[in-house]
């Protein structure tokens, strides 16, 4: 099986994540879609590491995981604080700032 299929799969996952960010309303789900995008990138990195025959891509995947974890910490804290205020995590409700 050629590695190209993995690239296609990761492109598909990335697109699903991107569309999810754009159409979903719940901030937590939007955030999960961003995580899906990051993990799709991990798959791409690992596949290219295999194609190029170098380990760099795999090492980068670890870095991405660490960053994703840090992002979860900050992101959930922010989403929690606004949820406690508004009793809703819908991104449509946050509409005080506009125009």
């Amino acid at each position: 099986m050629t590695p190209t299929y993995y690239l296609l799969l990761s492109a598909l996952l990335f697109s699903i994540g991107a569309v999810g960010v754009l159409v979903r309303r719940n901030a937590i789900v939007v955030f999960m879609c961003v995580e899906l995008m990051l993990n799709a990138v991990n798959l791409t990195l690992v596949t290219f590491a295999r194609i190029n025959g170098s380990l760099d891509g795999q090492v980068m995947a670890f870095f991405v995981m660490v960053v994703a974890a840090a992002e979860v910490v900050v992101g959930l804290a922010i989403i929690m604080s606004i949820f406690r205020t508004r009793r809703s995590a819908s991104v449509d409700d946050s509409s005080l700032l506009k125009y």
Partner: protein
Amino acid sequence: MNLLVAQAQQIEAPEIHYGAIAPVLIVLGAACISVLLEALLPKHQRWAVQLVLSLLTLVGATGALILYAVSERPEQGVATLAGTVAVDSPSLFLWATLLVLAFGSVLLIADRSVEPGGAFVAQAAIRPGTIQDRAQATKTGMQTEVFPLTLFALGGMMTFVASNDLLTMFIALEVMSLPLYLLCGLARRRRLLSQEAAVKYFLLGAFASAFFLYGVALLYGYAGSVKLSSIAAAAAGTDRSDTLLFAGFGLLVVGLLFKAAVGPFHAWTPDVYQGAPTPVTAFMAACTKVAAFGGILRVITVAFENTQWEWRGVLYGVAVVSMVIGAVLGLTQTDVKRMIAYSSVAHAGFLLIGSIALVPDGEGVSATMFYLLAYGFTTIAAFGIVSLVRNSDGEATHLSQWAGLAKRSPIVAGVFTFLLLALAGIPLTSGFIGKFVVFSAAIEAGLTPLVVIALVASAVAAFFYLRVIVLMYFSDPAPDGPTVSVPGAFTTIAITLGAVVTLVLGLWPTFVLDWAGTGTFLS
């Protein structure tokens, strides 16, 4: 076992030029100490200790930077930490800019004279709108975690402008962004707006970094390495598929343009600038802009200069869109912070013109760096002024409340007028010199039509700056209008620093222009 030992001996520890990267190490080290202090000190001591530590750090890092800059160092710069960080003349210039701008921002952040207790919430965990929240609004304490967060963000920015490979750049991007997301949500007044700004900035910022990262992955697939120079070498002459290169470049640039608030990737800018506490807005508007454009300059000069004829048209279009969006939507704004936000989108368009003016001799780079420095100081001072005009509800940012301000406080109105003229690019201010050098570099690079569009956009943008000036001088103040707080030492120093640099660079720009043009990026 023997095999392991043999392999361990093959790995050589990379050489580290501690002198070159000392400024970044000092800032990040102090940020870690600052977190510890937050845990160990009693609450009433924290503000003073954190402030002293932050200011000492910035002074120390600037000192280390100067020591390194005047010492014997290789003309073209050094690549250290296994080639991941490049300390060259542009890095040093941008580091110095970031450190001085951060000094001004820290002063604004620490100020407690304008608002008792400062612009930051006393305890972020208290829900807005509750009884405890009304009680905490009158308390004098503040969440002193803002100091370590600011230092971490600054460390990320400094690494970002010096990173020589895309992975380092991505990590630096996150180190600078994550603290900023939190800082946005910590305003003392109007906490709902502040939290909303943090959520919007966070979700869009994470979305943009995912694009950046996918670009990095595709470029890794193309070049087999994420080093900027390897990407340039791979693009110079191979039969590899261009699809990976240009798809990777496109996604990477989307992430960078988002951070730099270039239209059409600017959607977060007005909301976040308005909702965030004003000192944080000043920090973001000045320092993030410097960092993001420093990164853009390095990436397109070092990695993509060979292929510039393929992508230049795209960034050309982006610059036009950014200037038009900034100038036209700026006209319709009624809030002074939003107005400056749209003005920053227009300025991002001007900066992008300088960034893509690479031929014939790369004067665009030094022009853009000068523009960044000039714009940063003007913006910090402008937001400093915005934080002074207040009513019982906090800052009075609606433009109608600024009517007749000159009659209440001639000095504040005068300084703000000067800063607005600098943003508009009137002669005798740094804004004019910045626009002049960027546009002349662009004309030399054959971008004359773009410069014509930019001039029209600056004329349109000048209208909304002048509208504020007219409002301040030629209308009568409302009887229940806002008062102008008398700033304490910190805010005064920050505003004076910004205004004086704006004036000095308008009169004698040669020194800084020479300094900006001393060297090129290490490739």
